[in-house]
């Protein structure tokens, strides 16, 4: 996937004149105060949902680092979500709740596995690379299923990691009673899951850190090397760069960041399941990136939030058991027309804002209309949904078709 035909998106400028910058800062600010209002309004579920979005945004950002800037189409990125989650589960099963220890192990474990998978798969390219990364992750998935001590197929409950921090007798632990109430018995307190705020803010900070780190990385000397290796590997070697080493390092860094997402996800769900490593999850992370815009980092975060919102809306309005049947074909369409993703649609100049608002408005209206239509069509969908496993197969097939189409588009445009 060379970027030869990709139109150049101007770099983000840290100025109030760049709508992208304004939107990102606004978005970060809204997310920063979201739990406060969420808890005031008693919408605990929403806070938890947004926390999940933030966690997957971290995963999508880490994938974009190697996919968008290194041309490494890893179809096994969910492996590291699983590894991060297992780090929590394994320790918590044996009574070790120390979050710092768990986090270090999640990162180290992801790094080791990424080093192993990367060392082998980076010797190939194109479709072979996709297949090998997929195969390794499926191996880990089946390994997880066969690990009976950790629940095997069924998964297991995990305890939240303990991040208490006491220095010189002062308690620095992130306080979940931060906003709303002191005690659970407080009758004004509508919040029943106050640990949620801690997970939320941990994820929020981790996402900000990941985005910052990845943006720095891609414009560093190291970043220029992996981008050059994506654009023209032969020339890079002729100029004198041993590109394998650099690509492998990038692969490991992405694995570590995604391992952090897995660590957070296990804490968020308080549950471990080998399904976290299923290829469907890997495909979902990739679609998040494509929707938001590959090769921008910010886009991946936007895409994660967008896709999970869409899933939530469909599940709520179309129907719990068969919403995947609608999501599947919709994803195929979105990926097909996503082109450079949502991020690339945001204008670079203030003069482009009205047009952008108009386009987004039309798009959201169309999407809302579609969802409404589908909710009316639910009796038909219900019949189709009653066929055993059909919704699941539809989503399987759709993700494969969507990614296949995308790959075909990319490879065709790079040969043109």
């Amino acid at each position: 996937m060379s970027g030869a035909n990709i139109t150049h998106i101007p770099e983000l400028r840290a100025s109030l004149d760049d709508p992208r910058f304004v939107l990102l800062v606004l978005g970060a600010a809204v997310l920063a105060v979201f739990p406060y209002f969420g808890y005031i309004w008693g919408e605990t579920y929403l806070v938890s949902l947004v926390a999940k979005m933030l966690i997957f945004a971290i995963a999508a950002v880490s994938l974009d680092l190697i996919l968008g800037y290194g041309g490494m189409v890893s179809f096994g990125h969910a492996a590291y979500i699983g590894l991060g989650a297992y780090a929590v589960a394994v320790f918590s099963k044996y009574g070790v709740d120390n979050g710092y220890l768990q986090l270090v192990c999640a990162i180290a474990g992801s790094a080791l596995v990424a080093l192993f998978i990367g060392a082998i798969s980076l010797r190939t390219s194109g479709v072979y690379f996709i297949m090998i990364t997929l195969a390794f992750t499926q191996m880990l998935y089946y390994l997880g299923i066969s690990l009976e001590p950790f629940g095997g197929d069924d998964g297991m409950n995990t305890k939240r990691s303990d991040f208490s921090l006491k220095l010189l007798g002062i308690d620095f632990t992130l306080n979940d009673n931060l906003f709303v109430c002191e005690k659970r018995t407080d009758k004004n307190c509508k919040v029943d899951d106050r640990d949620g705020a801690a997970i939320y803010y941990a994820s929020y900070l981790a996402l900000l850190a990941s985005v910052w780190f990845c943006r720095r990385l891609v414009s560093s000397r190291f970043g220029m090397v992996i981008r050059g290796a994506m654009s023209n590997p032969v020339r890079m070697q002729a100029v004198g760069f041993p590109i394998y080493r650099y690509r492998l390092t990038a692969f490991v860094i992405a694995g570590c960041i995604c391992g952090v997402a897995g660590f957070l996800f296990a804490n968020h769900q308080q549950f471990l399941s080998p399904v976290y490593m299923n290829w469907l999850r890997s495909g979902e992370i990739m679609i998040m990136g494509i929707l938001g815009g590959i090769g921008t980092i910010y886009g991946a975060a936007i895409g994660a939030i967008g896709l999970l919102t869409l899933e939530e809306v469909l599940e709520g309005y179309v129907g719990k058991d068969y919403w995947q049947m609608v999501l599947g074909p919709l994803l195929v369409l979105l990926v097909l027309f996503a082109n450079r993703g949502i991020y690339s649609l945001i204008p670079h100049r203030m003069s482009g804002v009205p047009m952008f608002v108009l386009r987004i408005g039309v798009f959201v209206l169309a999407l809302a209309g579609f969802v409404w239509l589908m909710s009316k069509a639910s009796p038909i969908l219900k019949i189709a949904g009653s066929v055993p496993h059909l919704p699941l197969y539809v989503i399987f097939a759709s993700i494969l078709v969507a990614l296949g189409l995308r790959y075909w588009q990319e490879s065709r445009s790079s040969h043109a």
Partner: protein
Amino acid sequence: MPETVLSIERLVKRFGGLTATNDLSIAVHKGELHAVIGPNGAGKTTLIAQLSGLLTPDSGRIVFNGQDVTALPAHRRSALGLARSFQVTSIFLNFTAEDNVALAVQAHSGHSFRFLRSARSESALREPAKKALERVGLAHRADVVAADLSHGEQRQLEIAMAIATNPTVLLLDEPMAGMGPEESTRMIDVLRGFKGTHSLLLIEHDMDAVFQLADRITVLVYGQAIATGTPDEIRKNPEVKRAYLGDEA
């Protein structure tokens, strides 16, 4: 006696029964533009591949700045100051012109496991890149994405990438290939600008360009040098006439 910076000594390269380079000796003097011409199949491309380290000769030596580099791999030679440009344009299409050159500079300034500092604001990379673009006359196109440059400009960029690392000898593999007359003229001006400061070994099909530019010319036929001399000497050489125009000439 002028100083020799690159000396090719009795070089032989065989592919099965075909001898592509046959006991070839060429001396490139400091500051000169030395052109190698020859009809198709004379072994020009094989020669440049051996000089840049992509092919290993069967016998003979390549001495660069007094050091025997015959067995060194490509990236070591370019680190010593023996740079090459490519026959087929080989740039980073989605990078800007300046990014392309800066990346070439970066390849020659230590390892690149530096993760946080922006490479785009590092003057150690950007200043040499800007200078190289200026020398090939592309300074005004520095911020243009390479894919949007014209074919001629892309070839100029290619040269800028080669000179950005301050090489002592520059190997140019058909820099005029596929260019229109106007672009060729511009490229000739660019190359003329290097005379005196760089030693160049130019392999080129375009005879007009070669006779305008070269200080000395070596004519290659079937892997052998049949003549070496100034453009005037070569023009008058009867053997060269025979090789190019056939026996009746």
